[in-house]
C-alpha cells in the first residue's frame, strides 16, 4: 500500500466527514421531522406518490366474478358499474382506499384506541380513553354477533359477504400501491390491512361524534349552584318557540306559557340553591375534576368547540308542491369541517337481472353503504335528534375490587387490552366496569393523574348506547336495498345510534319523517325529586338509580307521513309536540329552533318548489333571530333621547336591514355583537351572584326572545346596582357599548365598513392540523342560527375578536324524485384526500360560491357516460389472476 500523502489524508477526511454527516443527517428523524432523505431523495421518496389517479388503469383480479368498470367524473366521484353487488363492493373499497386511505387509517386508529401503534407512547393516554369508551370492545362484539347471525340469517350472511368484499377491495389497493400518501411518509408509518371490524367501528366513531358528552356532569354542577327550579328555568323542556319535527303531536307555538317558566323571580334569585340535594356535597368537585381531565383531550376540545354547530337540516315536500308531481328531498348535515371532508360521494350501479340496484350517496370512508342518499325507489336524509343515550353514574367505593351497587357490595368486572406502542413494549391496560359501564374516575387515580393530589372521591362510570352490539351496518344495507316505505322502516328498526331524523321520499309520492334510534327507558323510581331523572343529571348507582330497564319501542317513536301541510322539516329541534306520549323524555337537548322556524317559514311562503328553490333555502342566511329581536331594539332606541351621532347613524343603517347575515355588510356585525353582549347584560349579574359566571351558555337566545315578547322585566334589572333597570335601558345601553366597541375595533365611525366577513370567517383544517394543508380562512355569510350555518362568537372574555369557524354544512344535496337527472350535491372539500390532488378541494370552491354539481344518477349504462365528463377509468377484469 502506498504511503498516504498529507493531501490525501486531508481530502479523504473531509470527504468522509461530509459524506457521513450528510448521509446520517438525512437518514435520521430530527427536530420533530421525519428522515428527510427517505421522504425527498430519489428511490423511496414522495415524488412518485400518485397525487391524482391514472387516466386509465386495468386491474385483473381473480376474485371478481365479472368485470367492473369505474368512471370517475370531473369531480373525481366514482361511478361503479358491475353485474353483481359483491364485485361492485370490491371496486368501491379499492376506490375509497385510493382516495381516502390516510383518513380511514386515522379514523380507525382513533376509534379503536390504536394510535400508539403508529405514533408512539405520546398517544397512550388517548388510546386508554378511547378504549375505556368501549368502542373497540363493542366493535369486536358486533363483528362476532354478525358472524354468528350470518350462520342462520341469509340477510346477515349477505351483509357479511358485502363487508368482506369491500374489505378485500381496500386491502387489494394497500397491497397494490407501493407508495403511500404524503401523510404516511411524514409520519413514517405503513398501513396494516383493513378489516370488517374497522368498518363496524365507524358506527362507533359517528356515535361518539354525535352522542358522547359530559352534559350530565355539567348539568349537575350548575344545578348544585343554582338549584333545581333555576336549572329548569334555563334548561328545562320544552324550550321556547319550538316547531317540532313531527307534526302530528300538537305545536308549542300555540302557547307561550311554558310550564318551566312558571317561577318566582325573587325566590329564584335571592334564595340561591334550592331543591333536593341527594348527593354528597363533594360530588360536584368529583365531577369537576373528571370533566376538567377529559377536557384536556383534543378530541373532547374539538367536540366542545364544534358542539354548537353540529346539527343538520333536512326537509321534504310532496308532489303537490313540485313540477314533477313527485317529492323533492333536501339535506345538509352540519359537522366539523376537515380536509379531506367526512363524506365520500359514490354512485353504484348493479345490473343484475334479478336484482338491479342504482345507489348514489354520501359514504363514510371505510363504509360500503351510504348513510344518506338514494336508490331508484327511495331517498333519505339525516339530521341529528340529540336523543339522550348516555348517562353518568356515581358509586360509593369499597376498595379496589368492590363498590356499592343498589345497596349491595359488588365486584367490578374487567376488560383487558394490550396496547401496541411504536418503538416500545406493549402496554397492558385493564378497564374496570360497574354494572352500568366503564369506570372513568380511574383516570384520576392512576399513574396518569396528579400524584400529589390523588383522587379520593366517588367512583364515576358511564353507560352509553354505543357500548353495546348495534346493527347500523345492517340498517344501511336495508336502506340501500329498500324499494318502499315498509322496507325502509325495516332498516330504521335496525338503526340504533347516533339517532337521526330520517327524512324520506319515494317514487310513489310518499314523504315522511321519523326521529329514529334506540332510546333507553330509565328506572327513575325512588329519586328524591322527579326533576332529577330522565338522564339529565348523573345517577346514584349505589342507590340503584337510573338503571336502563328497556327501550322506547320503535313503533312508539314519533313519526309523520304524508301530512296535510305537504312538507316536513327537521333541523335538530324538539322531535315531537306536547301530545306525544313521551314528549320530554327522548331528548335532554336540542337546537334553539331558529333554523327550523326559518325553513318552515320559507316552505310556507310559496306553494311550488323547484330544485333551484331548495338550493336557495340551503344557502339562506336570513337571521330569524335578528328579524324577531331587532324590533325591540329599535323601539328602545327610538324612544331614547340621548343617542350620539354615531349611534343614530348606526340605527338608521340597521332600520333598513333585510336581516341577511351578509359577509359584505356592516349590519350583521352590529347585530351579532349586540346580541352576544346582551346575554351578559341581562344575566351576568344573576349568574355572578350564583358564582356561575362561566355558565352563561346555559341561556339560549330564544330565552331572551321569550323575555322580550312576554315583557318579563325582572331579569333586566342589574341586581348589582341600586337603580332599577328595565329592558329598554338594557337594550339601549348594550347597543351603545356595541357601537363603541366596533368603532374602536375598526378605528372609524362609518358603520358600513364594519364588514361582517372581517370578523367572521370559515376555516377548513387538514386532518393533521398541519396549517400548510388547510384552506382559509374565508369571509363567511351567516351565523350558527341561519339555515346555512356558520358559527360565530365574536365577543369573548370582554373582547371583540375575529371568529374563525370550523364547522357547518358537511354536504348539500337536493334530489327530485321525479327528475333524478337533475339531482345535485356538493361537499366543502373534494373527493380525494391526497394533498395537491386536483380533487383535494375542488368542490370547496363550488361550496363557497353556493354552487352544486350534478350527480349523474340516471346514467345506469356505462356506455351512456359521456366522454367529456369521464376523467379517469378503472377496468377491473374479473376471473383472472393478478
Amino acid at each position, binding site marked *: 500500500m*502506498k504511503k498516504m500523502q498529507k493531501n490525501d489524508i486531508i481530502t479523504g477526511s473531509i470527504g468522509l466527514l461530509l459524506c457521513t454527516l*450528510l448521509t446520517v443527517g438525512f437518514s435520521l428523524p430530527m427536530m420533530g421531522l421525519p428522515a428527510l432523505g427517505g421522504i425527498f431523495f430519489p428511490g423511496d421518496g414522495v415524488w412518485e406518490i400518485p397525487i391524482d389517479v391514472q387516466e386509465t388503469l386495468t386491474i385483473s383480479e381473480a376474485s371478481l366474478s365479472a368485470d367492473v368498470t369505474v368512471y370517475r367524473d370531473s369531480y373525481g366521484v366514482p361511478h361503479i358499474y358491475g353485474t353483481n353487488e359483491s364485485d361492485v363492493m370490491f371496486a368501491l373499497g379499492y376506490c375509497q382506499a385510493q382516495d381516502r386511505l390516510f383518513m380511514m387509517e386515522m379514523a380507525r386508529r382513533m376509534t379503536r384506541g390504536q394510535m400508539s401503534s403508529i405514533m408512539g407512547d405520546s398517544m397512550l393516554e388517548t388510546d386508554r380513553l378511547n378504549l375505556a369508551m368501549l368502542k373497540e370492545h363493542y366493535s369486536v362484539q358486533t363483528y362476532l354477533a354478525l358472524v354468528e347471525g350470518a350462520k342462520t340469517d341469509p340477510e346477515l350472511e349477505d351483509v357479511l359477504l358485502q363487508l368482506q368484499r369491500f374489505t378485500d377491495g381496500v386491502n387489494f389497493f394497500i397491497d397494490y400501491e407501493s407508495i403511500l400518501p404524503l401523510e404516511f411518509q411524514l409520519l413514517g408509518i405503513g398501513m396494516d390491512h383493513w378489516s370488517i371490524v374497522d368498518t363496524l367501528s365507524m358506527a362507533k366513531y359517528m356515535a361518539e361524534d354525535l352522542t358522547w358528552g359530559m352534559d350530565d356532569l355539567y348539568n349537575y354542577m350548575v344545578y348544585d349552584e343554582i338549584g333545581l327550579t333555576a336549572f329548569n328555568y334555563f334548561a328545562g323542556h320544552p324550550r321556547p318557540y319550538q316547531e317540532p319535527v313531527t307534526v302530528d303531536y300538537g305545536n308549542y307555538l300555540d302557547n307561550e306559557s311554558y310550564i318551566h317558566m312558571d317561577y318566582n323571580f325573587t325566590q329564584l334569585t335571592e334564595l340561591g340553591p334550592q331543591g333536593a340535594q341527594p348527593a354528597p356535597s363533594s360530588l360536584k368537585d368529583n365531577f369537576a375534576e373528571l370533566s376538567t381531565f377529559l377536557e384536556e383531550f383534543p378530541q373532547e376540545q374539538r367536540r366542545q368547540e364544534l358542539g354548537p354547530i353540529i346539527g343538520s337540516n333536512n326537509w321534504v315536500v310532496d308532489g303537490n308542491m313540485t313540477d314533477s308531481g313527485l317529492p323533492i328531498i333536501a339535506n345538509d348535515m352540519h359537522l366539523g369541517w376537515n380536509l379531506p371532508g367526512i363524506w365520500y360521494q359514490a354512485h353504484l350501479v348493479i345490473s343484475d337481472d334479478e336484482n338491479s340496484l342504482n345507489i348514489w350517496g354520501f359514504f363514510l370512508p371505510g363504509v360500503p353503504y351510504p348513510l344518506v342518499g338514494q336508490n331508484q325507489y327511495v331517498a333519505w336524509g339525516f339530521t341529528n335528534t340529540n336523543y339522550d343515550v348516555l348517562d353518568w353514574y356515581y358509586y360509593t367505593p369499597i376498595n379496589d375490587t368492590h363498590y356499592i351497587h343498589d345497596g349491595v357490595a359488588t365486584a367490578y368486572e374487567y376488560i383487558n387490552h394490550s396496547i401496541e406502542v411504536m418503538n416500545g413494549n406493549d402496554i397492558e391496560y385493564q378497564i374496570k366496569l360497574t354494572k352500568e359501564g366503564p369506570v372513568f374516575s380511574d383516570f384520576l387515580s392512576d399513574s396518569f393523574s396528579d400524584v400529589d393530589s390523588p383522587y379520593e372521591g366517588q367512583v364515576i362510570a358511564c353507560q352509553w348506547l354505543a357500548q353495546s352490539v348495534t346493527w347500523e351496518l345492517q340498517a344501511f344495507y336495508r336502506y340501500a336495498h329498500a324499494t318502499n316505505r315498509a322496507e325502509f322502516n325495516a332498516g330504521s328498526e335496525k338503526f340504533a345510534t347516533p339517532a337521526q331524523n330520517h327524512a324520506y321520499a319515494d317514487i310513489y309520492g310518499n314523504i315522511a319523517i321519523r326521529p329514529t334510534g334506540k332510546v333507553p327507558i330509565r328506572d327513575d323510581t325512588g329519586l328524591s325529586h322527579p326533576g332529577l331523572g330522565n338522564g339529565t343529571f348523573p345517577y346514584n348507582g349505589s342507590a340503584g338509580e337510573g338503571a336502563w330497564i328497556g327501550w322506547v319501542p320503535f313503533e312508539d317513536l314519533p313519526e309523520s307521513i304524508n301530512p296535510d301541510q305537504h312538507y316536513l322539516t327537521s333541523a335538530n329541534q324538539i322531535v315531537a309536540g306536547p301530545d306525544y306520549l313521551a314528549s320530554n323524555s327522548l331528548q335532554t337537548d336540542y337546537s334553539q329552533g331558529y333554523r327550523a322556524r326559518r325553513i318552515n317559514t320559507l316552505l310556507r311562503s310559496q306553494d311550488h318548489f323547484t330544485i333551484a328553490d331548495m338550493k336557495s333555502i340551503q344557502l339562506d342566511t336570513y337571521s330569524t333571530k335578528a328579524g324577531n329581536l331587532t324590533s325591540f331594539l329599535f323601539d328602545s332606541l327610538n324612544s331614547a333621547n340621548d343617542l350620539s351621532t354615531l349611534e343614530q347613524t348606526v340605527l338608521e343603517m340597521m332600520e333598513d336591514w333585510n336581516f341577511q347575515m351578509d359577509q359584505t355588510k356592516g349590519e350583521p356585525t352590529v347585530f351579532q355583537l349586540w346580541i352576544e353582549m346582551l346575554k351578559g347584560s341581562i344575566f351576568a349579574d344573576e349568574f355572578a351572584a350564583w358564582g356561575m359566571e362561566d355558565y352563561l351558555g346555559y341561556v339560549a337566545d330564544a330565552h331572551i326572545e321569550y323575555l322580550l315578547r312576554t315583557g318579563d322585566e325582572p331579569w333586566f334589572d342589574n341586581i348589582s346596582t341600586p337603580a332599577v333597570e328595565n329592558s329598554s335601558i338594557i337594550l339601549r345601553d348594550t347597543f351603545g357599548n356595541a357601537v363603541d366597541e366596533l368603532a374602536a375595533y375598526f378605528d372609524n365611525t362609518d358603520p358600513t365598513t364594519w364588514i361582517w366577513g372581517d370578523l367572521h370567517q370559515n376555516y377548513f383544517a387538514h386532518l393533521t392540523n398541519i396549517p400548510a394543508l388547510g384552506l382559509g380562512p374565508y369571509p363567511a355569510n351567516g351565523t350558527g342560527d341561519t339555515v346555512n350555518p356558520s358559527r360565530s362568537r365574536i365577543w369573548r372574555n370582554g373582547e371583540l375578536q375575529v371568529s374563525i369557524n370550523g364547522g357547518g354544512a358537511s354536504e348539500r344535496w337536493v334530489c327530485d324524485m321525479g327528475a333524478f337527472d337533475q339531482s345535485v350535491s356538493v361537499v366543502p372539500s373534494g373527493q380525494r384526500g391526497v394533498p395537491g390532488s386536483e380533487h383535494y378541494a375542488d368542490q370547496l370552491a363550488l361550496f363557497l360560491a353556493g354552487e352544486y354539481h350534478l350527480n349523474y344518477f340516471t346514467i345506469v349504462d356505462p356506455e351512456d357516460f359521456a366522454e367529456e365528463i369521464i376523467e379517469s377509468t378503472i377496468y377491473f377484469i374479473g376471473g383472472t389472476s393478478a
Partner: protein
Amino acid sequence: MSSEEKSQDLMGKISSLLVTPWGQWLFPLGIVAIVAGLLTLIPVWQLVILAGLIGGILASKRTIAFLAGFFGTFVTWGMYFLIMQLKFGTGIIPLQFSALIFGNESIGPFFWIIFSLIGGIISGSAGWIGYILKSQFLPQFLSADE
C-alpha cells in the same frame, strides 16, 4: 478495413478521447450519472454513495473525482425531480413541506435544487473517498497526478 480493425480503431479513438482533458472529465461524470440514475430505481437513496465512489475510482485527478461525483448526481437527481413532477404532478409536495417548516411556500420551488445539491455533495465526497482508496490500493492505475 476488417471488423477487427474497425473495433481496434474505435477502441483507440475512445482511449485517445479518455486521455484528453475533456475525456478525463466526461468519462467518470457519465458513469456517475448512469449509476446514480439506475440507483433511483432502488428504494435506498444512500446508495448514491456508490455512484460517487465509482466516479472517484475512475477519475484521474482528485478534483475530477469530486466534480464528477457532484455534477453526475446533481444533474441526474435534478432530472429525476423534474420528470417525477411532470409525470405525477408532485410539485405541490415541496411547496407544502416548505409551508410546514418555514410557514410559507416560498422555499418550496427551490427544494429540488437544494436536494440535488445535497446529493451532489454526498456523491462528490464519496468521489474523493473513492479516489483516495484507489490511490492507496490500486497505485498502478494512478496517472501522473500531483
